[in-house]
């Protein structure tokens, strides 16, 4: 039976962070996943903490850490090193990020003309972070025929001060805010729509198609030329351009460089509904880093169960076509996600189940799962459901006893967070992935690995 030092289950941000860090430390890591989800659905930035009225991510993390039961209570100190690690990893693939945890959280435009408060974004979204000067305009530039980005909707909405200031709360917290936050928005917001070369009459126009088109240097230079002309025709003066996040998949950096050269104004991408190209780029960078470190990756192989020996997981069992594929595991990182990712399943009888290891799940009673309305301030009580862990991220039961010694639970599977409302999902993922790797890989964690037996010296089996 093949063996791995660590089997990571789930290929989202948390799983990949843990897997890369472990592989970096010399562990034999097998990463298995049912499919792609998390990265492909999210805006591609590193949202660490933006609870209402916290001015910076750092303060946000502190506030959330002080909340009873929040994962940051354990992980607050891992965000910084985890983030630095991940940034250096994706930097290998040329994927750069802007912003630091200490920066003021800034409202950036969204694809329906709202704003969201962010601190660390991919470089392609970076110029949305700069403060707006008094005479700057924002040109929302859509692509004719592309149905996931409506410039009229976005521009009309962003012309309202309330949309910007609702997000910029927290300046009164004593941290430096050198100007009235209400002025920190564009003076004018305009909408333009540009027809890009060869797109008229196409039967498929979506983020993937456009992203691939922007990977073609000749095409994109012509496209940017058209956009530049449309922007110039709309007026003069300082400003920025907001475009849908379709600017290249494999060649995004080159596409942004061309944009900087050809467009008359700074431009930033606005993330869209899935498939998220910023998320794809992040995934590609992480995947490459993992494989380069000798990691083994299997996408499309669900874990059907695990074999255990007392409080240790010993074998991870995957479903192959007609038989089980068994991998001996020294340790397991469970990064299967929350309800959205399929790592937690709501059952008809009102239970919330963790399907891989059947871990105890902290969840409200079914009567209290959902609020009355789709969106309200306190959210749905079910959002905080998840698996509770000790400080080493080992799953624990209601009595606080460790269920498995050699399992680390990471990412949105962790209980106590409202990932969307608190904007902490990426931070928790990175911090927990980093912490899991440190715990499982450190010498003090040697006991967790159990006895390892390579089947053949030097082989990758």
């Amino acid at each position, binding site marked *: 039976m093949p063996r791995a030092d660590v089997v990571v289950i789930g290929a989202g941000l948390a799983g990949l962070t843990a897997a890369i860090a472990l592989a970096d430390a010399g562990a034999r890591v097998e990463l298995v996943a049912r499919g792609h989800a998390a990265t492909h659905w*999210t*805006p591609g930035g590193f949202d660490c903490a933006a609870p209402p009225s916290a001015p910076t991510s750092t303060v946000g993390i502190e506030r959330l850490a002080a909340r009873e039961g929040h994962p940051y209570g354990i992980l607050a100190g891992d965000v910084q090193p985890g983030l630095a690690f991940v940034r250096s990893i994706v930097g290998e693939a040329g994927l750069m990020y802007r912003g630091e945890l200490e920066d003021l959280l800034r409202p950036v435009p969204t694809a329906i003309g709202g704003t969201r408060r962010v601190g660390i974004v991919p470089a392609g979204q970076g110029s949305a972070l700069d403060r707006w000067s008094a005479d700057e305009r924002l040109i929302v530039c859509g692509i004719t025929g592309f149905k996931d980005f409506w410039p009229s909707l976005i521009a009309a909405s962003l012309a309202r001060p309330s949309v910007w200031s609702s*997000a910029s709360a927290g300046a009164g917290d004593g941290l430096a805010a050198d100007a009235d936050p209400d002025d920190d928005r564009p003076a004018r917001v305009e909408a333009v729509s540009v027809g890009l070369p060869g797109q008229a009459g196409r039967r498929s126009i979506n983020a993937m198609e456009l992203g691939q088109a922007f990977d073609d240097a000749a095409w994109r230079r012509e496209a940017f030329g058209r956009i530049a002309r449309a922007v110039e025709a709309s007026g003069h003066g300082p400003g920025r351009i907001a475009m849908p996040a379709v600017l290249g998949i494999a060649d995004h950096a080159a596409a942004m460089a061309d944009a900087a050269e050809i467009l008359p104004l700074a431009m930033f991408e606005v993330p869209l509904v899935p498939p998220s190209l910023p998320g794809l780029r992040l995934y590609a960078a992480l995947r490459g880093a993992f494989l380069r470190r000798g990691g083994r990756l299997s996408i499309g192989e669900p874990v059907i169960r695990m074999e255990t020996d007392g409080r240790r997981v010993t074998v991870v069992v995957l479903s192959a076509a007609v038989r089980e594929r068994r991998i001996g595991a020294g340790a397991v990182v469970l990064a299967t996600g929350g309800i959205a990712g399929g790592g937690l399943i709501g*059952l008809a009888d009102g239970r919330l189940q963790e399907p891989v290891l059947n871990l105890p799940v902290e969840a409200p009673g079914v009567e*209290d799962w959902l609020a009355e309305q789709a969106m309200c301030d306190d959210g749905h009580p079910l959002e905080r459901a998840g698996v509770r862990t000790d400080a080493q991220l080992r799953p624990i039961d209601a009595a606080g006893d460790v269920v498995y010694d050699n399992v680390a639970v990471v990412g949105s599977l962790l209980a106590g967070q409202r990932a969307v*409302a608190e904007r902490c999902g990426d931070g928790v993922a990175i911090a927990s992935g980093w912490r899991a790797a440190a715990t499982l890989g450190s010498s003090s964690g040697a006991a967790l690995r159990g006895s390892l037996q390579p089947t053949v010296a030097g082989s990758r089996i």
Partner: protein
Amino acid sequence: MSPAQSFDILIIGGGATGAGLVRDFARRGLRSLLVDKGDLGSGTSGRHHGLLHSGGRYVVKDALAARECIDENRIIRRIAPASVEDTGGYFVATPDDPDEYVDAFAAACHASGVPCEEVPVAELLRREPALNPAIRRAFRVPDGGLEPWGLIEATVADARARGAQIWPYQRAVAMELTAGGRIVSVDLADERSGSVTTVAPRFVVSAAGAWAGSVAALAGIKLSMAPGKGTMLIFNQRMTDAVINRCHRPADGDIMVPVHEVAILGTTEITVDDPDVYGIGRDEVAQLMVEGLKLFPDLARMRLLRAYAGVRPLYKDDQPAAAVKDGREISRAHLIIDHETRDGVGNLVSIVGGKITTHRLMAEQTVDAVCAKLGVAEPCTTAEEVLPGQGDAASYWLGHRLAEHEEDGGGDADLICECEMLTRASLDRFLDARWPCSLDDVRRGTRLGMGPCQGGFCTFRAVGIVAERSATGTLPAQPEGLSPEAVDQILLDFLDERFRGTRPIAWGRQLQELWITAGLYGGVLGLESLSAGSRPPTAEIAPAIAAERETVHAQG
């Protein structure tokens, strides 16, 4: 103040019956106005099970109702084929169904004129492999699928062509009566703008169904309705292409109907006080599932998409019977109430009860009664002529949206709602014809948001199109466009509406879908930053509300 417009007939209630009434009156030469407090078909008709009854359900207990069903079934297939899917239907005897009923079934069908043919169970199971293999007997009947909004649209189109007027979003708020008990004028309040219009009808027909009580109250009449809520469960895929009925005394959860791309299991019967206020409890859902599992053993593994309910217009007759008799027997299934004899109001009639399958007959009988009072001798012709807009007179084909799109070249470029294959062009046509309206109205007319993602991906696209047309001044009747706040409200209202049908069934894949949608709108799209995005915190709303007492708006 402008003089009241006068009409021969004012019909209050724009469901299937109201539509049938305005068509029949118009065809008999009477100047008619149809009003509804909302969009046409936004009441009970828009929340029915989707079934065109063969009558098989009634053959054993109510032969007359059964006969009415089969007669009208044939008529509707002829006059509105585009609204009918020829699914066929089966009555199946599970091991739980008593022999006496099953044994009597075929003969009872024949006695009522309902075509019925027993088929070998093995043959049925080969056609519909998801059915319970323990079924003992099976009978084929001409059940079908009936799409209410297209039916109503086509029916009122015929009426309009003959000079009738149709005014949705007009709520009747006051009636003026003479001392002698005749209605001389009715005030209609526009639900969208608030303005009031007064009309002067010679005769008023209330087809308000479950709301008949509140309409009668405007004339000072006490009419007690007993709205019967029926809950239905929508499954994401058709596990059957034929209607499947339990062969037993009619009870809850004993019919599965394939409706467009989904399959709907129903129903229940619970009396509610107010047809606008009711909830759906998890226990109702659980009970329906228990019954459904008897027909489809794998039902618990199939994706439950949504729960919705309609309220039946059941009448609680607390006064001596005053039913109109025209010489024929009238089925107990529906009732025409002559308020002249019952309440001394000479020009008001209410039609209550009934089902959408027999709407045309209900209208015919009501119009006959009113015309008799008015001395109008024109006969009814509504059974004869095919409704407008039926295309090539072929019945509905499930694959038609896909096939047409594929013929056009396929692809996703112009699909606004991908789940339901709704194109930009179709959406624009609807907005051209019906704006101003809500996205829920758009949903009824185009199926926007009725697929697995329940509006997750298409809501903001539809809103984007509205905003684009607002900015270019191409929204009908609103060339000045909409404020961003109004646009926000359109978005939020639709998301809320979709949520309400998800909440009672929020587990499994649909819970996961809900979480993804919440992640999109809350996370990527920053919904909470929009002006109307701040809601009262839940502390202001009663916290844990017992399942069977949830109070939510009517949803579907």
